[in-house]
């Protein structure tokens, strides 16, 4: 905890000003002060507010180590995974401002409804369909094949919805499926085990699909695990142009 000594020689504890959204779509900003520590994440601050100031504060988290993707919120205007975002990194003006993710309905306080985000995966055809039963040998996947390398590069999405929240095209057109679903569709298009590639492609390239991407790059800039959804979308567009690898087999 940061402390300093005032002119009278007394020890003072530094505090941090926090503004948090309270309520649903209609709500208000509430201000709190918590202890400023040398090493604290945004999720630490939210937890401290809930435990010491506002027991009814609603927020989501699970793993606290950047794996589950459930603690994403808008912090000082930018979507971030709060468990891995240090306060020091984002409080340039000294005040921490926390609200739910953009582009999703607000349920209560810092919790938003992720259903529209999850629905985009279905809409983009991002559902794996294998072609073999348990009685058949598993499909052989060559880890060094170009297709597998392309899939591997895009595979580590933690479904945090940060890219969906950051995307201005989603903000303008809520029908657009967004970067995460198209990134997932791209991994399936490069997965030799997936037997519904033509269907996935039709959905990913359909209305509200990858053709709507404006190459703004917000998805790449804010992806907490440093994926490149814009690159995946570009890959889908390239695939549409060349017509390669759009076939059902497996």
């Amino acid at each position: 905890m940061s402390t300093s000594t005032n002119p009278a020689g007394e020890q003072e504890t530094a505090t941090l000003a926090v503004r948090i959204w309270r309520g649903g779509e209609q709500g208000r900003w509430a201000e709190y002060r918590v202890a400023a520590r040398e090493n604290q994440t945004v999720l630490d601050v939210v937890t401290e507010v809930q435990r010491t100031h506002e027991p009814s504060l609603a927020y989501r988290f699970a793993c606290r180590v950047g794996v589950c993707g459930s603690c994403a919120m808008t912090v000082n205007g930018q979507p971030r995974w709060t468990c891995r975002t240090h306060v020091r990194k984002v409080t340039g003006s000294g005040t921490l401002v926390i609200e739910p993710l953009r582009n999703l309905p607000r349920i209560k306080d810092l919790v938003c409804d992720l259903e529209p985000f999850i629905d985009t995966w279905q809409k983009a055809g991002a559902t794996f369909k294998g072609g073999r039963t348990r009685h058949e040998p598993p499909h052989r996947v060559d880890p060094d094949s170009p297709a597998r390398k392309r899939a591997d590069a895009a595979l580590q999405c933690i479904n945090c919805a940060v890219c969906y929240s950051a995307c201005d095209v989603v903000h303008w057109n809520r029908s657009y499926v967004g970067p995460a679903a198209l990134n997932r569709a791209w991994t399936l298009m490069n997965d030799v085990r997936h037997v519904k590639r033509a269907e996935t492609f039709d959905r990913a390239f359909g209305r509200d699909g990858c053709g709507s991407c404006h190459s703004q790059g917000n998805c790449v800039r804010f992806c907490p695990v440093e994926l490149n959804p814009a690159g995946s979308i570009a890959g889908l567009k390239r695939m549409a142009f060349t017509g390669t690898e759009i076939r059902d087999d497996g």
Partner: protein
Amino acid sequence: MLPLRSHNSYLASIGHRLSGLALALFLPFHFIMLATALGGSDSLAGALALVDRPLFKVAEWGLVTLLALHLSFGIRVLALEWVASSQSPGTLGRWVISCAGFALLVGGIMLFRMA
């Protein structure tokens, strides 16, 4: 501007769209002007006299500059999708400075020719 929009790649994207819209608004007027030639040389000369004013000259300069901007931002998108898809748009975000420079250069050449 929202903090999440303050980066070069976003500016390039918006610049591309806005310059495209401006050109889309301009083109119908351009074709109407060309169509006056169908009515004979007097008709075209009358239309050309109408636009031979400082305000139109400035507008023409703006449109040529926007065209150059739209062209260079379009090349950025092509590069992103065909050449550098493994790179992030952020890498190509630096393109915004080159594009703006190219557009101003084209605009400058036009001004020089008009002078």
